[in-house]
């Protein structure tokens, strides 16, 4: 229960002034620019865009600066910003098959068309702190290699398997079929896969990582392989009403993960690999992989699997994946609950008094007998 209380205005103003001062920190250290954040803390920016569910690098960089590097706070700022803007419409679905790939690896095929391209990755680094970075040593220009013609054609691994019918194909209804949008209608259960993917795409990376991990450890086991992770740049098309034809809005960087999982078959269909899908803004590989694991786990009903684990429970997963909602409800606990608590204090005092009274009565009764 909330009761309006007044007071604290001056304390709040002064606290915000103190926050601004603490955000700036030691004045002898140069202030960080949002361009520096966008360029040099690029993966933090990608995460804030993904979970803030708003693709805008400069804005995400500014949010990170304003939030003093607290990424959930920055995500919150982005979500709040988007509520101030009108919605112009829906873009055409991006074609991840046409990604200008900067990274593409597969754990299932060594020699796939287009090859394994590592790109800018932490994989195979030794995770040793690099003191040269603290000393401000400029990196050498990266090596270059001639571009093979086949590099331009990188079919999805799932397309290779689909050629032999070894993997389930995604249903492709008419493109004018309605698409669920949880920014327009509240989450409702049971959720279809389009709604689930939207919720997972903006879901907290840590939460999805833990759930994905739990499926690997046996809580909803589904034997995953990374069919493919690809990261790259893709054009976004949009059809403005006034033009009636598709125009390019520009380009975005996205990450896609195709998880290939163990078989399902039936009397009619011979065994096939099944799929889980992950998609995120920017270079967000861990997020896309975790999302793909959870997407596959949430298909339990559809694939006739027994639901035994948290990662397979769509209501549990989708209702708790959003870190802005989660932080709002957890952090509200620190706001004044004086009246609530006063009521509970009264209650506990009354309970204790009643118990004491009963004990005294019983003691008197015993003494009288």
């Amino acid at each position, binding site marked *: 229960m909330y009761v309006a209380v007044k007071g604290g205005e001056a304390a709040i103003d002064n606290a915000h002034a103190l926050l601004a001062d603490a955000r700036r920190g030691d004045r002898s250290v140069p202030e960080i620019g949002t361009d520096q954040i966008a360029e040099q803390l690029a993966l933090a920016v990608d995460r804030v865009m*993904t979970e803030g569910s708003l693709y805008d690098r400069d804005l995400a960089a500014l949010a990170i600066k304003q939030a003093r590097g607290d990424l959930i706070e920055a995500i919150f700022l982005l979500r709040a910003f988007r509520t101030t*803007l009108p919605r112009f419409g*829906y873009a055409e679905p991006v074609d991840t098959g046409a990604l200008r790939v900067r990274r593409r690896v597969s754990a299932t095929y060594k020699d796939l068309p287009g090859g394994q391209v590592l790109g800018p990755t932490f994989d195979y680094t030794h995770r040793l702190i690099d003191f040269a970075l603290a000393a401000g040593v400029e990196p050498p220009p990266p090596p270059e290699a*001639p571009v093979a013609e086949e590099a331009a054609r990188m079919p999805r691994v799932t397309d290779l398997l689909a050629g032999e019918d070894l993997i389930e194909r995604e249903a492709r*209804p008419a493109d004018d079929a309605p698409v669920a949008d949880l920014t327009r209608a509240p989450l409702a259960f049971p959720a279809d*896969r389009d709604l689930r993917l939207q919720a997972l795409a903006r879901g907290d990376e840590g939460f999805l990582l833990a759930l994905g991990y739990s499926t690997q450890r046996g809580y909803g086991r589904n034997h995953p392989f990374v069919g493919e992770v690809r990261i790259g740049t893709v054009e976004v098309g949009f059809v403005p009403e006034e033009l009636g034809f598709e125009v390019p809005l520009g380009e975005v960087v996205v990450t896609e993960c195709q998880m290939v999982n163990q078989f399902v078959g039936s009397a009619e269909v011979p065994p096939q690999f099944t799929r889980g899908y992950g998609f995120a803004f920017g270079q967000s590989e861990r997020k896309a992989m975790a999302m793909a694991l959870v997407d596959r786990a949430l298909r339990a009903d559809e694939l006739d699997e027994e639901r035994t684990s948290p990662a397979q429970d769509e209501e549990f997963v989708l209702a708790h994946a959003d870190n802005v909602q989660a932080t709002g409800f957890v952090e509200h606990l620190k706001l004044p609950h004086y009246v609530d608590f006063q009521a509970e204090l009264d209650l506990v005092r009354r309970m204790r008094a009643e118990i004491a009274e009963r004990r005294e009565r019983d003691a008197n009764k015993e003494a009288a007998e």
Partner: protein
Amino acid sequence: MTPDATSSPDIAARRAAMTLCALARADELDAALATLGPPDAVADLRRPETGLVMLRGRVGGDGRPFNAGEATVTRAAVRLSSGEAGFAWHLGRDAARARKAAILDALFQARPDAVEAALAPIGVRVAAERAAEARRVAATKVDFFTMVRGED
């Protein structure tokens, strides 16, 4: 989208010019406008405005669409004194840049060859950057070789 609208060569050329404007930096659009000579009177059909477009992916990359998250988009619409209307829809929040692109779109309809020439340097810059990135990425391609087994 009507198929005949996009397949018409005029539309394809206009789209190509719009693509270059969407990839251009603001100073590159300034340079293109300077080359063309700025039009004498430009009326705003719609003042530049920033809003949201919902980006979409497909389930599994190739299945049904889903809503992946929004992007900021700025749109502008102008009319030249000679009557041509120009439009721009760009990712981001740069109102001035969108308006410049809308002017270039309007100019394109009157003088397509001149606008194409003025935008050509943007295409050259973008192609060079993409080629350089492709070469750096290509250097990270894995060349597997099979180890000789001990018992052979």
